[in-house]
């Protein structure tokens, strides 16, 4: 018996893409240890605006680590546009579901990715429709369980 489904447990026990890219094209951090979880994502983007590598460092529970692993897996090989379109729901679906109280972890991953792309866009002078109105410094929503639940 485990707390999470097999996919989540596998990504938690053997997470992919752990670490930090040196000289990343984009770096985003979301959450804080005060809130209970914090995720840092670094990305490498090629000239065709395709994400060729992504790594994460996460402070958080099992589902936060699994969400980071899955989310970085998903964006590697995506165009920046596609990655901006990645919703937390898609991350949850790919994980085969998360307990309601943990949906928040996938939101964290979605935001950390957006933050990393925001950093990339700022650095390279790009604009994306998917970043419109996005504030990388917005406070994390403390009411974890009331947002974007399935």
């Amino acid at each position, binding site marked *: 018996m485990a707390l999470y489904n097999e996919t989540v447990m596998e990504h*938690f026990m053997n997470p992919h893409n752990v670490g930090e890219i040196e000289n990343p094209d984009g770096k985003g*951090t979301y959450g804080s240890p005060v809130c209970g*979880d914090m995720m840092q994502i670094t990305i490498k983007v090629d000239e065709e605006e395709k994400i060729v590598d992504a790594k994460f460092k*996460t402070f958080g*529970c099992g589902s936060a680590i699994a969400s980071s692993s899955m989310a970085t897996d998903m964006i590697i090989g995506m165009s920046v546009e596609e990655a901006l379109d990645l919703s937390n729901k898609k991350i949850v679906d790919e994980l085969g579901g998360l307990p309601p*109280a943990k949906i928040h972890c996938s939101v964290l991953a979605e935001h950390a990715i957006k933050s990393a792309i925001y950093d990339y866009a700022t650095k390279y002078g790009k604009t994306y429709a998917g970043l419109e109105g996005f504030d990388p410094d917005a406070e994390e929503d403390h009411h974890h*369980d009331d947002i974007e639940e399935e």
Partner: protein
Amino acid sequence: MKQIYLDYSATTPVKEDVVKEMIPYYTEVYGNPSSLYSVGLEAKQGLELARERVAKLINAQPAEIRFTSCGTEADNWVLEGVADALKNKGNHIITSKIEHHAILHTCEHLEKNGFEVTYLDVDSEGFVSPEALEAAIKDTTILVSIMMVNNEIGTIQPIKELAAVAKAHGVLFHTDAVQALGNVPIDVKDLGVDFISMSAHKIYGPKGVGALYIRKGARINNYMHGGGQEARKRAGTENMAGIVGFGKAAELSMNNLDAHIEHCSTLRNKLWEKIQAEIPHVQVNGSMDKRHPGNLNVSFDYIEGEAILLLLDAHGICVSTGSACSSGSLAPSQVLEALGVPVTKMNGTIRFTVGDFTTDEDIDNVVEVLSKVVARLREMSPVTGKEGW
């Protein structure tokens, strides 16, 4: 994979001798102890033996022990029952910020019904001070309820001193001793308390049975209404096997108390020494003396408790997070909060409790795995302590 259970404060395995005494009460001595034929009377005899054994463990009279369905019921009963009995005298109850939810949520319920509750603070070591209690007592105070041993950090409150303060003001005193029973010596005569909550499943007895000690003459109304069981104080046909198991567990605990305390505190201290020696950036929460002999509550900086728990579980090691999982909808531990533990540390807190079946080798194995688990999660963490959180 061998399982190493270090969560004895959550519950304990039932000892074989306990199970052995319980089984006949399901199959042979199945009579209702209120019945007047022999199989009923035999059950009654078992019931009264259990009462004597539980009474003996806390130096009470058997007639002062009333069995309940769990520790939670005992807590609910005492608060609701005293509030109801003394509502014409006053509406003020004093408790602490670090009580179990069985007390805190019952207090919140009473607040909705017109009672006023004062929640006393604890100091950074986790203790309630008799002076603070003295200052909180008013003319309308009818009950003080302070737990004997805290379930998260294991601190043992100065119950004798606190009860004396209440008594000096003619106020009834209750202590939730669910975690204390079988882990610290309890003598009701010496402590001078009016009510004590107990539970069997923390002392190698079965789940779903508890008791309330009611000092002879202490005023309290009934909580469960119905038949005339438990000298008309607690209705409901008795959980016979459970109660018999509780009695046997109490007897074993009584005979084994000194050895149990010695065994647990030796292993617990070893656990803490090894953790300190092998893992940097750790902190123990709550005083190390005046503490439950098996309890160790440790914060690991830069990482989160549930992740530690899950990786330990993958190695067959059972512990609990000191704080309800921070990423969930549950609030962080009100106990660690009351102690003034910073939120960043709170999120990385683990409660270990050793018990009678823990071995010296278990401790070595746990620390070996733990140091790897902590190192691995720290490597994965973006928090390094340099950020100023």
